[in-house]
């Protein structure tokens, strides 16, 4: 898997988007890039918090038209 994988967790509430990200993260390989889409307001702060805590890398985090786009590289 070399391209960015999109995880569409729009219209689910906390902690749905985070749990969905983690499910895919577990299956991904080190170096893979995943992009989480979320309409849950807290995701913009909460997901990077988890990413930092477990040691992956945030590549970008922006809200476009009410949807958080959070791009993460699996680091370990």
């Amino acid at each position: 898997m070399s391209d960015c994988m999109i995880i569409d967790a729009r219209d689910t509430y906390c902690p749905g988007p985070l749990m969905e990200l983690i499910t895919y993260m577990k299956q991904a390989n080190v170096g893979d890039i995943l992009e989480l889409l979320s309409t849950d307001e807290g995701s913009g702060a909460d997901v990077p918090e988890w990413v930092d805590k477990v040691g992956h890398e945030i590549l970008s985090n922006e809200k476009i038209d009410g949807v958080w786009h959070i791009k993460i590289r699996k680091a370990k």
Partner: protein
Amino acid sequence: MPQKINIVCVTGTREKLQMAAMIASVGAAVGYDVTVFLSMNALQYFVKGFTEDAPSEGELGRLLSQEGVPPFKQLFQQAVELGDAKLLPCSMALDLMKITKAELDSEVGPPTGLTRFLSDAEDCQMFTF
């Protein structure tokens, strides 16, 4: 050694089960060593084939039933599968309900007594719902 979180679930209402499940799943995902002790009216939801919805305490509980809110059972399951959380049924409650571990969902661990639970829970964060 990872920090431990202990959650005691005793109330069978939707808000409390949801909050407990959220803490369990996010805590386990972050890397905490999570243990959930299930007793009293919370245990019935983990009996195989039990399909009754947990009653709401108020408006928030009703809002939780809308689409897009992850059900508490799913969150507890993810806590076990993704973060190795332990769900431990209270042995006294099992006795009172006259059921055995075999009648509980597969993600539920071994029946546990209070002495064991309290000694495992020493010096750690404890949440009670």
